[in-house]
C-alpha cells in the first residue's frame, strides 16, 4: 500500500492477498483492485478507506475495523466531495458505517456484500449511506444486519437497483428529503421497520419485494409526505402493514400484490389525489384501514379476494362495487385490542351487515370496478432475489423492460 504514495493519477494498483492495517487515504485518481482475499483492516482506529479524489475505484477488497463512535460517522469506505467514485465487489465486514458517500456525484456502488454486527442500534451505522449526493447508482449489493440498510438523505436523481437488504435493525431502505430517485427490483426482508420513504417527491418504486417486516410499527413500505410518487408492480407479503400512506399527494399505486399482510393498505385521511388501481389483495387480515374519511382518492380495477359480487355480463369486472373498508377494521383502528375478536361469529355478522347497509364506514372509498379474477401480471416482482432483469407486460401490452443499467 506504500505504493499509493508514488502512484500517478490514472494508475491501476493491484494488491494480492495482502492484509493492510490502518487507515488508507486516497488523494489521487487511482484504481485499487484487490485479489486473492486482500484485506484492509482499519484496526478500530477510525475510518478505513478515505477517498478524497475524483475518479477513484475500490474493487475486490475485504474491508473491516471501522471504529464505533457516537461522535463520528466512521466508515469502511468513505468518499466525500468526489465525482465518479466506483466501489465494487468488496466485502464490508462489520463496519460501523460500511459505505459512506457525501457530496458525491455519479458514484457507482455495485456487487458489494455488506454485513453488520446487528447489535444495539446506537452501536451500528448504516450499510450504504448517501448524503447530499446525486446521480448515484447502487446496484446488486447485498446488505445485512446494519441500522438502515441503504440510507439516502438529500440525494437526487439516483437509482437503487436489484439489491438485497435484510435483517436491519431499522429500515431496509430509508429516504429522507431525496427527490427524483428510483428503486427497482430490490428485496427487503425481515427489517425492523421495513422501508421508509419520507419527505420526498417524484419517487419511482417498482418491482420490489417487501417481505416479513413485522412489529407494532413495521411496514412493508411507509410513505410519509410524498408527492408525485409511483408504486408499481411490487409484492408486499407477510408484513404487519403492507403499505402505509401518510400525508401523500398524487401517489399512484398500481399493479401491486398484497398478500398475507396484517393490514394490506393503511391510508391516512390526509392522503389526497392518490390512485390505487389494478392491485391484488389476497389473504390479508385487513385489506384497508383508515383513521377517517377518505376523499379525493381513486380506487378501481383491483382484485379483492373478499369481493362477493357477481359478474352477469361476463366482462370479468364485478357488477357491484366493493367496499374494502370493513367495520371491524375501523373498530380495530379505534380500539386495537379488539383484535381478539378477529373472525368471531359476532364480528363476521356485524361486518356483513355493515357491508350491506353501510352506516359507519365512509362510502367515499369504494372500488367501482373490482375484478373477478387476479390479473396475471399483478405483483410479478422477481421471485428469487431481484437480480435478473424482468420484463413485465403492462396493461396496454407494451413490454416494459426494467433493467435500466
Amino acid at each position, binding site marked *: 500500500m506504500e505504493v499509493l504514495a508514488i502512484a500517478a493519477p490514472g494508475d491501476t494498483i493491484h494488491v494480492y492477498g495482502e492484509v493492510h492495517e490502518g487507515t488508507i487515504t486516497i488523494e489521487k485518481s487511482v484504481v485499487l483492485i484487490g485479489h486473492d482475499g486482500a484485506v484492509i483492516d482499519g484496526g478500530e482506529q477510525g475510518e478505513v478507506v478515505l477517498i478524497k479524489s475524483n475518479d477513484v475505484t475500490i474493487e475486490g477488497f475485504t474491508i473491516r475495523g471501522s471504529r464505533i463512535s457516537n461522535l463520528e460517522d466512521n466508515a469502511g469506505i468513505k468518499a466525500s466531495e468526489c465525482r465518479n467514485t466506483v466501489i465494487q465487489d468488496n466485502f464490508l465486514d462489520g463496519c460501523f458505517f460500511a459505505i459512506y458517500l457525501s457530496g458525491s456525484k455519479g458514484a457507482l456502488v455495485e456487487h458489494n456484500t455488506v454485513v453488520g454486527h446487528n447489535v444495539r442500534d446506537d452501536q451500528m451505522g448504516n450499510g450504504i449511506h448517501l448524503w447530499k449526493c446525486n446521480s448515484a447508482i447502487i446496484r446488486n449489493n447485498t446488505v445485512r444486519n446494519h441500522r438502515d440498510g441503504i440510507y439516502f438523505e438529500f440525494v437526487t436523481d439516483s437509482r437503487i437497483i436489484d439489491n438485497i437488504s435484510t435483517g436491519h435493525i431499522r429500515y431496509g431502505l430509508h429516504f429522507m428529503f431525496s427527490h427524483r430517485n428510483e428503486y427497482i427490483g430490490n428485496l427487503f426482508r425481515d427489517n425492523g421497520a421495513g422501508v421508509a420513504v419520507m419527505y420526498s417527491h417524484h419517487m419511482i418504486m417498482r418491482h420490489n419485494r417487501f417481505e416479513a417486516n413485522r412489529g407494532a410499527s413495521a411496514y412493508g413500505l411507509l410513505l410519509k409526505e410524498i408527492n408525485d410518487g409511483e408504486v408499481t408492480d411490487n409484492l408486499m407479503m407477510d408484513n404487519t402493514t403492507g403499505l402505509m400512506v401518510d400525508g401523500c399527494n398524487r401517489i399512484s399505486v398500481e399493479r401491486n400484490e398484497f398478500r398475507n399482510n396484517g393490514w394490506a393498505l393503511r391510508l391516512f385521511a390526509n392522503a389526497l389525489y392518490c390512485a390505487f388501481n389494478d392491485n391484488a389483495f389476497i389473504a390479508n387480515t385487513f385489506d384497508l384501514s383508515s383513521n377517517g374519511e377518505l376523499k379525493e382518492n381513486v380506487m378501481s380495477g383491483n382484485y379483492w379476494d373478499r369481493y362477493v359480487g357477481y359478474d352477469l355480463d361476463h366482462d370479468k369486472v364485478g357488477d357491484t362495487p366493493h367496499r374494502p373498508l370493513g367495520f371491524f377494521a375501523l373498530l380495530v383502528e379505534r*380500539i386495537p385490542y379488539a383484535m381478539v375478536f378477529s373472525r368471531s361469529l359476532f364480528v363476521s355478522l356485524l361486518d356483513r351487515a355493515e357491508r350491506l347497509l353501510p352506516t359507519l364506514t365512509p362510502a367515499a372509498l369504494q372500488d367501482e370496478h373490482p375484478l373477478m379474477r387476479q390479473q396475471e401480471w399483478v405483483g410479478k416482482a422477481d421471485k428469487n432475489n431481484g437480480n435478473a432483469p424482468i420484463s413485465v407486460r403492462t396493461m396496454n401490452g407494451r413490454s416494459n423492460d426494467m433493467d435500466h443499467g
Partner: protein
Amino acid sequence: MLKVFKYTLIDLARNRFVLGYALLMLFVAEGLFFVEDDPSKALLSLVQVVMALVPLIALVFTIVYSYDSLEFTQLLAVQPIARRSILAGQLLALCTALLVAQGFGLGLPLIVHLPNMAALMLSFSGSGLVLVFTALGLLIALKQREKARGVGVGLTVWFLFVLVYDALLMALMFSFSDHPIEPFVVPLAALNPIDMGRILVMLQVDLAAMMGYSGAVYKDFFGSYGGIAVAAAVLLLWFVVPTLFSFRTFQRKDL
C-alpha cells in the same frame, strides 16, 4: 364402567347421527379446501364453521342421545353397578365417539391439505370444544326432565357462548373504551371456550396483524407453551366442572 363404556360405544357406532357428523365435517372441510385455491384461506372459513358447528352438534347430540338412551340407563341402574360407573362410561363413550368422528371428518382433511401449526391448533381446540360441550350437554340432559326443554336449553346455551358473550364483551369494551380495560378484556374473552379456541388458531393465522400494536402481548402469552397450557387448563376446567355437577345430579336423580 368399562362394560358400560363398551356397550354405549357399540350403540353409538351404530348410530347414524355420529356417522352423519363425521361425513358432514368431512364434506364441509373437503368442500372448503376444494373451493378455495389457497388452503390457508380455506382454514379461515373452516375456523368459523368449527367454532359454531362443533359446540352446537356436541350439545344437541349429547342431549338427544341422553334422552333416547334413558331406558337403557334405567336398565343399567337396576343392576349392581355404581351410578358413578354408569355415567362415567356413558360420558366417556360419547366423547370418544364424537372425537373419533371429528378426527375423521376434520383431522383427516387438515392433515392432507394443510399440515401446519394453525391446523394443529384448530384440531386441538376443536377437540377441546367437543369435550366441553359434551359435558355441558350431559349436565343439561340430566337437569331437565323433558326432551324438548333440554334441547331448548341446549340451544340457548350454545347461543350464549357463540354470540351473546362476544356481543356483551364488545359492548363492555365500547362503553369503557376510554379506560385501560385491556388487561380485563383478553382474559374475559379467553374464559369462553369458543373464543379461547378461536384466539389460539388466530394467533397462528393472523400472526402478522396480531403482531401489530398490543398484539405482541397476546403473542407472548398465548403463543408460548405456557399460554397453550393455560388454554388447555381453561378448556379442562370447562369440562371438569360440568362433569362434577353431572355426577352429583345423577347420584341423586330419581330416574
